[in-house]
C-alpha cells in the first residue's frame, strides 16, 4: 500500500475555467491542463492520477468555489477514529 498516494484531487470539469493556477501551484506537480478542449471550449485541469499529497494548494489557488475537492488518505491505524482536527492539520502542512 505504500505506493498509494496520500491525497486525491477531484476536479469538476463543469466548473473549471482552465486558468491553470492550480497546475502552477501544485507542489508535487500532479495536475495538468487537459490537451483536449471540453465542451465549454477550455482546457480544463485534470489530475495525472499520481503524486497528490492532499496539501490543498490547488484548492486555495482556484478561483472557483467548488471546482476542486481535495481528499486525504485515511491512515489505516486511524481509520476508525472520527476525523475531527484534520482540517487544521492540513493548513499547518501547507504553511
Amino acid at each position, binding site marked *: 500500500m505504500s505506493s498509494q498516494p496520500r491525497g486525491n484531487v477531484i476536479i469538476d470539469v463543469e466548473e473549471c*475555467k482552465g486558468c491553470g493556477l492550480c497546475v502552477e501551484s501544485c507542489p508535487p506537480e500532479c495536475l495538468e491542463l487537459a490537451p483536449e478542449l471540453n465542451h465549454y471550449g*477550455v482546457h480544463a485541469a485534470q489530475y495525472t492520477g499520481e503524486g497528490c499529497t492532499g496539501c*490543498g494548494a490547488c484548492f*486555495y489557488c482556484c*478561483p472557483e468555489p*467548488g471546482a476542486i475537492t481535495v481528499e486525504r488518505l485515511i491512515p489505516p491505524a486511524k481509520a476508525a477514529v472520527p*476525523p475531527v482536527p484534520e482540517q487544521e492539520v492540513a493548513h499547518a502542512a501547507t504553511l
Partner: protein
Amino acid sequence: MEGYQVIHEKSPAFYTRYERKAEMQNQTHYCPGCGHGVVHKLIAEALTELGVQDRAVLVSPVGCSVFAYYYFDVGNVQVAHGRAPAAATALKRANPESIVMAYQGDGDLAAIGTAEIIHAANRGENICVFFVNNSIYGMTGGQMAPTTLVGQRSTTSPWGRRSHNEGLPIHVCELLAALETPTYLERVSLHDMKNIMKAKKAVKKALQIQKDGGGFSLVEFLSPCPTIMKMDPVVCRKWVGETLMKTFPLGVFRDHKPELPVDAKFPHKTIAEALEVADGQTVDLVPRRHHHCRDLTVKMAGFGGQGILLMGQLLAEMGLREQMEVSWLPSYGPEMRSGSAHCHVILSHDRIGSPLLSQPEVLVAMNELSLHKFGPTVASGGLILYNSTKLPEGFSAPQARVVCVPASEIADTMGSAKVANVVMLAALLEETECLPTESAIAVLEETVKNPKLLELDKQAIAAGRDYVDTQIEVGAVSQPDGYSY
C-alpha cells in the same frame, strides 16, 4: 474515493447553484484566474469556521463583484457605488448581532467611496471591510483607478499614469492607519499559496474581531485581473507578486483595539419602550379615518421670522397625529431673514405624489407682498386668509374667498407678536375645519417646552378660533369687487 476523506471542498456558505442566469449555474461569472473567487472562498470558509453564516450580511459593491449576492448564502444587500461602508454601518447598528461585511474594489472604495470608508473607519464601526485591490477598474473595461501604478497603462492613462498629472497611487491601509479608531488593518496578497494562506488568516481574524465587538477592520487583497491586464492568469499572478507588491507593501498596519475616551451613554430604549407599549403588545398601524379630517393643500407665506415655516410644521404635525399622509415643503435661501418665506403643506388621506403646490386650495398670506404674489395662484373655489382687517386697495382674486384675520394685531393685544402664526393657524382650522383644534393643542403641548409660551399659544388658538367664529359673517363679501363666494 474509498479510503480517502474530503479535507477541502466547496464551503456551505456558498449556494449550491447560482441562479443569476439560466445556463452555467455551477460557475461564478468571474474571468478565469480572477482574484475575487479566491477572496470569496476565504470569506466563505471563515464564516463557516466561526459559525456565523446564519447572521452574516454581505454588502455587495458596484464592480465585478456586484453579483456576490448570487454566490453567498448569507444576508445580502447591494448598494450604490462606494457606499458599502455607509450601508454596512446602518446594517450593523440596526442589528448589532449581525456580522456585517462590506466587499469593495479599488474603484469603489478608493475613488467614489473615499468619504464613506474614511468616516466609517474614523467612527470605528464594528464592521469588516474586504478591499480587493487590482489596481484597475475591471468591470468597466480598464480605466485608471486611484490605485493604478505610476507608469501603468489604462484606457484613461494610455501613456501610463504620470504622477504630475494623476497623482500617486493611494495607499488605503496607510491612509486609514493615520486614524486612531480602526482596530485591524492588513494588506495581503493573492499571488501564491503562502500568501493566500496569510490572507485566509487575516479574513478570519477580521471577522473574529467583529464577532468579539472589537471595532473596525479592513483587509486589503492585492489581486490579479488577468483580463484587463491582458495577461495569462499565471503571469498576472506573478505580476501581482513582483510589481504590484512593490508599490503596495504587505503588512499589518494596525492591530490593537483603540483606547477611546468614555462617552456619555445614550439612553437605550427598546422598540416597545419607544412606542410606549408593553413588551409583546401589538400596535395598531391601520390608519384611523376621522371624518372631520379633510384633505387640504395649503400655501403659507410671509416675512422671514413670522413663524411661517413653524406654522406649516405644526399643521403637518397635526395631520400626522391624525394619521393622515402629510408633506411639508419649506422655502430656503438667503430670502428667509426679513425676506419672504413660504412653505407648502399637504394633508391627505392618500399617498402624496409631490409636495410642491402650484395651485393651493388655501393661501395663508401673512403680509401684503405674499398676498399679491401668491393670491392669483389659489385654486378656483379656494380660500385666502390674509393677515389684516381689510384687503389692500386694488387687490382682487375673484376665484377665491378671502377672509381677513388680523392675526398680528390680535397677537399684539395678547402681548407677543410671536404668536401671530398660531392665531392664524387657529383661524385656518376654524375656517376650513380640516383638523380639530384639540389636535393643535396636543401638538403644541408636545413641541413647546416653555410653559409660559405654551399658555400664550393656547390663548392664541382660542383667540384665532373666536375671531373667525364671531367676527366673520357667513357669506361675507370681502372682495373689493363685491364678489361673494
